[in-house]
C-alpha cells in the first residue's frame, strides 16, 4: 500500500465511528504511525474532520420541530384507553396521526407557510383511531343531525352546520393542523359515515371540487364551500358509498 492508497482509506476513518476498529483501517493506520509525512497529513485530516463535525453538531433543529412531530399524541391517544391496550393497527394509526398533526402543526407555527389544509384533515380522518362511532350520533344534533341522515339531502350541497352550536352540544372536537375540527357520526342506508368540519378560512387550501382518497380500508372525500371545509369518511363501501350520498 502506498501513501496515496493509505490516504484514500484514512480519509474515511472516524476515531469515534462505529467502524473505527474495522480491519480495513488497520494497515493504513499502522502506515500512518510509521511514516512521519503520512502521519502529519493524517493528523491534519483528523483535525479538519473533527472541526467540521463539531460545526455540524452546532446546527440545531427549530425548537418547535420536536413538539410538532409529537404534538399529535394529544389527538391520537384516547385518555380513557391507554395506547398499549389498543389493537396493533389502531396503535399504528395513532402513531400516524402523531406525525400528520406534527407536520401540519409545524407548517403553521414554524415555517410560516399557508395552513396545512384539507389534505391534512383527510389524512387524519383516514387514521383517526377514535372514529369508531364515538362522536355524537346525528340524532342528538337536532335539525343538523336530521339533515345529515335524510337520504334526500346531498352532503355536498352544504349541510346547515353551526359550529358554535356543535360545540355546545358536546360534539367531538379535535385539533388538526392547529385548527379545531368537529366530527359527527351519522348513518345512511345502514352504513356509517363520519363528517369532519372546520372553518374554511383556516383550512385555506381546501378546494371546491371533491377529492377522493382510499387507504387502509377507509375512504374519504374532501371539499369546501364558502364557509366551511369538509371531510367525509366511511369505513365500508369505499368511494362509491361516498359518491352515493355526496
Amino acid at each position: 500500500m502506498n501513501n496515496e492508497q493509505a490516504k484514500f482509506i484514512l480519509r474515511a476513518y472516524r476515531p469515534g465511528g462505529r467502524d473505527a476498529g474495522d480491519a480495513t483501517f488497520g494497515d493504513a493506520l499502522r502506515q500512518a504511525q510509521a511514516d512521519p509525512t503520512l502521519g502529519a497529513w493524517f493528523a491534519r485530516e483528523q483535525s479538519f474532520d473533527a472541526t467540521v463535525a463539531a460545526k455540524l453538531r452546532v446546527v440545531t433543529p427549530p425548537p418547535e420541530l420536536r413538539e410538532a412531530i409529537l404534538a399529535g399524541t394529544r389527538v391520537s391517544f384516547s385518555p380513557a384507553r391507554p395506547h398499549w391496550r389498543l389493537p396493533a393497527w389502531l396503535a399504528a394509526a395513532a402513531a400516524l396521526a402523531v406525525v400528520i398533526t406534527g407536520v401540519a402543526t409545524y407548517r403553521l407555527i414554524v415555517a410560516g407557510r399557508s395552513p396545512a389544509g384539507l389534505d391534512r384533515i383527510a389524512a387524519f380522518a383516514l387514521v383517526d383511531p377514535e372514529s369508531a362511532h364515538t362522536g355524537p350520533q346525528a340524532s342528538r344534533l337536532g335539525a343538523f343531525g336530521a339533515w345529515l341522515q335524510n337520504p334526500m339531502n346531498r352532503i355536498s350541497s352544504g349541510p346547515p352546520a353551526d359550529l358554535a352550536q356543535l360545540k355546545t352540544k358536546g360534539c367531538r372536537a379535535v385539533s388538526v393542523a392547529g385548527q379545531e375540527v368537529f366530527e359527527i357520526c351519522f348513518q345512511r342506508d345502514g352504513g356509517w359515515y363520519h363528517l369532519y368540519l372546520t372553518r374554511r378560512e383556516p383550512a385555506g387550501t381546501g378546494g371546491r371540487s371533491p377529492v377522493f382518497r382510499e387507504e387502509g380500508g377507509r375512504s374519504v372525500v374532501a371539499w369546501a364551500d364558502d364557509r366551511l371545509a369538509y371531510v367525509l369518511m366511511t369505513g365500508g363501501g369505499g368511494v362509491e358509498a361516498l359518491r352515493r350520498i355526496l
Partner: protein
Amino acid sequence: MGSDTFTQLVDANYASLYRFALSLTRNQADACDLAQQTFFIWATKGQALRDLSKAKAWLFTTLYREFLRGRRRSGRATALEDLPPDEAEPPAPEVDRIAALDAQIVLAALQDVDEVFRAPLTLFYLEDLAYHEIAEALGIPVGTVMSRLSRGKTQLRTILAQRDQAARDNLISFSAQKGRRTP
C-alpha cells in the same frame, strides 16, 4: 409501538435527521418537512421493523429515499454521468480558521458540495451510521461511499478555502473603509 417508544425514537434521531435533511435540501422548511415525513412513514411502515436497533439506519435510508423521490418529481436529480471530474486536493484553510468560522458558514459550504458527494459526506460527519449502513442508505457499494467521501472532502476544502478567503477579503475591505473614515 407505544407513545413512549415513539418519543424515544424521535428524541434519539430527529436532530441528526434534520441536519442530514438540511444538508440535502439547503432549506430549513424543507428539511423540517423531510424529517417529519420520515417519521410519518415510520408510523405507517416502520412498525414492521422488528429489530429496533436498525431503526436509525431505517430512518436515514427512508429520509434519503424521500429526498430523492422529491428530486425526481422536480426533475432536478443529478445523474451519475453528471459527476464532476476528480479534483486535486486543494490546500485546506488552517483548522483554526475553520474553527473560527460560524457554523452556518461551514454548513453552507457543505451544502455547496455536489449532491452525490454531499450525502455520504454529511452522514460521515454525523457519525450516526456505520459504513455499511451509509452504503445501504444511499444504495451504493461501500467502496463507492469511500470514493465519494474522498471527493466530497476535496470539494468541501475548496469551498471552505474560498469562504475563508472571502471572509478575510471582507474584513480587509471593511477595515480599509473604516480607516478612510477616521479623521
